[in-house]
């Protein structure tokens, strides 16, 4: 089997080839490891650490995942390998244990190829806010891959790794998947253990797969999902995931929410014409496969972003308090910091955290402060409850149709994953503008329900911000509906027939330039076997 053949195989097919003895897992690993170090791959800056080789004693060829190498977002703890969450604060930090989700993938036979770059502490939508340099989009290296799981998304899209783990708090798997033309699934909150994930916002964080196909996503999710006694909020999935094979949508009802579609574009800065056209084409395709489309309402969805940017920073301000320079992480060498405890805290944190992280810590600290708690945190929790209730009613057939009439029961909700395609590095400078990237993904995060982004076309309409950039379709379902959700996603994926291969053909940076992308230049740290 030739090199280019491997590159065009899905993870599932690669594993099957390994099972059949047609592929040696060691050579497979070496192939991807070598590919990730080619100059054109290094320019993408997907990885902050690469494994030296396959861990000893792995019998990958017989394992369910067949030795197909895995990229893992930096914020997952991996014993023996740096786990830095994209932050100077944790530069060089090597944890003594491995996150449950990663361990399950390793145990199922997906060896760790490398750790992928991300926005610092998963706070961002562009993977520009990374202490180890910005990541570039393989479809256009002047553009961002989305974020915060941008390293994982770009690496999968560029064929540097067959699949990867990311995390999604408000859209951090789905939006980069959309920007990079791949599949990204945020499971139901609690489906996958958070143990070993360096926390951003604990009540929202959820690990999930980024892959080139829906079936690959199902395969990887099946390996990592499950109840974990080390995470009291984990529950696992109700039943084992089968690999989706559905190709029709007979009897399926999709909802399109007035608040999360073209009419609502204004708040999100407007849905691009190409995105809207691709979305509408996906709806037509769904109907042609037998699905019904219903216009529905999620009355509180427009409040989701505001609630999210109270709740997530509040939790983050507490989760990040442990990075105080006492036992791990950056400690300031400043003279005053050597003498005074609180100066040490302040100086270490000032030096170790980036601007966006500091912004959210301050925001979160403020909304939890005495006298402000009820007005901000308390109010945002109420909004969150209302949004979860909106979704519950929608999927239970208790929702309202767009014009006030009773709505039929809806099986899944369809939205664009993002209002735009990937933007240029440095193009979005306003924090609020950046937060708007999460407009379509945050409601599902607040409700804790599963949602998947699959590629549904390329931009190129008059008025689009770019041409030839991937567009994502988001499909959301009720809590723990991963099985049926993946089935309908697979049917749509097959009908859409998206071609992601252009991103895998290495193209040099050429005259590319970086506009104000922060962080030091990339460079991959080489490690021993994880």
């Amino acid at each position, binding site marked *: 089997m030739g090199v280019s053949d491997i590159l065009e195989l899905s993870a599932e097919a690669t594993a099957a080839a390994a099972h059949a003895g047609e592929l040696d897992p060691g050579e497979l690993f070496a192939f991807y490891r070598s590919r990730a170090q080619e100059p054109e791959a290094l320019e993408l800056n997907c990885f902050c650490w690469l494994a030296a080789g396959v861990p000893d004693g792995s019998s990958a060829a017989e394992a369910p995942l067949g030795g197909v190498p895995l990229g893992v977002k930096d*914020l*997952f*703890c991996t014993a023996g390998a740096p*786990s830095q*969450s994209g932050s100077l604060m*944790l530069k060089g*930090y090597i*944890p*003594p*244990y491995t*996150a449950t989700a990663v361990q399950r993938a390793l145990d199922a036979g997906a060896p760790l190829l490398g750790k992928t770059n991300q926005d610092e502490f998963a706070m961002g939508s562009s993977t520009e806010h990374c202490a180890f340099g910005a990541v570039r989009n393989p479809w256009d290296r002047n553009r961002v891959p989305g974020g915060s799981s941008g390293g994982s998304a770009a690496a999968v899209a560029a064929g540097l790794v067959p699949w990867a783990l990311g995390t999604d708090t408000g859209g951090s798997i789905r939006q980069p998947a959309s920007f990079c033309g791949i599949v990204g699934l945020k499971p139901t909150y609690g489906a996958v253990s*958070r*143990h*070993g*994930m*360096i*926390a951003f*916002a*604990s*009540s929202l964080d959820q690990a999930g797969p980024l892959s080139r196909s829906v079936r690959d996503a199902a395969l990887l999710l099946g390996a990592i999902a499950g109840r974990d*006694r*080390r*995470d*009291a*909020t984990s529950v696992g999935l109700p039943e084992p995931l089968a690999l989706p094979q559905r190709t029709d949508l007979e009897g399926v009802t999709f909802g399109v929410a007035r608040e999360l579609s073209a009419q609502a574009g204004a708040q999100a800065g407007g849905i691009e014409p190409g995105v809207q056209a691709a979305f509408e084409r996906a709806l037509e395709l769904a109907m042609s496969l037998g699905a019904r489309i219903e216009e529905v309402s999620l009355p509180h969805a427009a409040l989701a972003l505001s609630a999210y940017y109270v709740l997530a920073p*509040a*939790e983050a*301000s*507490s989760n*990040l*308090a*442990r990075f*105080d320079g*006492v*036992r*791990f992480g950056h400690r300031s060498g400043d003279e005053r910091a050597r003498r005074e*405890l*609180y100066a040490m*805290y302040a100086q270490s944190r000032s030096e170790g955290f980036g601007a966006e992280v500091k912004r959210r810590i301050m925001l979160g*600290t403020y909304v*939890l*402060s*005495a006298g402000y*708690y009820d007005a901000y*945190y308390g109010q945002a929790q109420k909004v969150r409850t209302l949004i979860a209730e909106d979704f519950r009613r929608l999927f239970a057939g208790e929702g309202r149709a767009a014009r006030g009439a009773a709505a039929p029961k809806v099986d899944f909700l369809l939205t664009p994953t993002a209002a735009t395609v990937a933007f240029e590095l440095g193009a979005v400078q306003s924090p609020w503008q950046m937060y708007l990237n999460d407009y379509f993904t945050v409601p599902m995060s607040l409700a804790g329900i599963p949602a998947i982004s699959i590629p549904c076309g390329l931009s190129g309409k008059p008025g689009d911000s770019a041409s030839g950039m991937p567009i994502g379709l988001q499909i959301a379902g009720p809590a723990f509906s991963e099985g049926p959700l993946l089935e309908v996603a697979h049917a749509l994926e097959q009908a859409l027939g998206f071609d992601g291969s252009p991103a895998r053909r290495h193209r040099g940076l050429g005259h590319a330039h970086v506009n104000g992308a922060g962080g030091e230049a990339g460079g991959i740290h080489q490690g021993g076997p994880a």
Partner: protein
Amino acid sequence: MSAYEPVIGLEIHVQLATATKMFCSCAVAFGAEPNTLTCPVCLGLPGALPVANAQAVHFGLMIGQALGSELAPRSIFHRKNYFYPDLPKGYQISQYDEPLCRGGELEGVRIHRVHLEEDAAKLIHVGASGRIHGSETSLVDFNRGGTPLVEIVTEPDLRSAEQAGAWLRLLRATLRELGVSDVNMEEGSLRADANVSIRPVGSTQLGVKTELKNMNSFRFLERGIAAEIARQEAIVEGGGEVAQETLHFDPASGSLEVMRSKEQAHDYRYFPEPDLPPVLISEAMVKRARAAIPELPSARARRLRETLALPEQLARQLAFRGELYAYFEASLAAAGALQPTPEPRLIATWLSEELLPRAAGELETQGGNVPPAALAQLVALLAAGRLSVGGARQVLERMLAEGGDPAQIAAAEGLEALSDEGELARMVAEAIAANPQAAEQVRAGEGKAIGPIVGHVMRASRGRADGQAVSALIREQLGL
């Protein structure tokens, strides 16, 4: 009498005697090598998550029921956020507005709430005799970090330092009886803070309170509160106003130092702990906790009073001290087999007034040379009139020194009560003859004058004679 009434409330932290920590499976142990009982969870390493200890919840429910609290079917953990090196996560997982238990009462002192939380790590300050001020460096031992704690908060129902001390002793006895904690104040498994204010006698309003931190013995607690009451009285007497602040009592100097003022008070930014689901209490859990509760000291004191007719003070003394009560119960059981059976009250009195002052330290080991059955036998001899009080004391001394059977000791030492009436009559006659002046006075109606004659008989009998019988015989022989 002071013109001011002190108003005192206590906040008590109790380390639970669970096998493992509150949110991880590290062992709970005192005195292990520093930083050997740790894991990613109790070190607050990135990515580590807490999982609540079911045994700690069980103990919390036992305590709540023992104090008559209302148990919340659903309670939640909160994060209490502040920076300090003994707090590895930058927050303590505690409970806030939805605690495990609310309300309750113990011996007239109302309970405000009972909640679960985790202990901080231990700071060790090197140099400057262990205090942080002037120390050269500080070390952190995370062994204690994450130990399960129950915090018990009382209403401000205590009115003096002594009352606070006595009540805390009762609480400690109750917790010890429950078996939920070692309740050792020196090792820090029981720690008390006191909220103290004063107000004019007769007033029903609460004054400005101060908080006294971590007094690690009953004596320090009582001294600290007394010192704070005196300080506040002096301030108010001098025309000043008490400031709301947190104070540290230095037992060495007896002085109170300000730790922080109201302005320096932390804003803990409490919010629900997202890593932990709500604590849901089922009827089965409540039942299981109730079934695990033994007879508690206050109920026991009532029973001793009501069914054994022990006086209030004696009943409380025996009931509130576990080792004393265990001895008493064993002694009572042994007495049941004796004929005639001595009165429980007599055994209790001899335990409290005769054995305890002579052998306080040995009661923990079931009396050492005087096991419970031996005391029962001794008291039975006394009750049967075979030993006088004086004779019984002498036998007890001998038992304490060498052990042995009280009847045998009495016989061997010739300490048995004089049962030969002829011999006693002869001794009385001799005593009257030897004290003619006293005899005359007694005849003349001066009852007190009988003392020297009785003393003469007691000396002659080496205490074997019964005082009352002797007095009666003297009066008889004097023709009265």
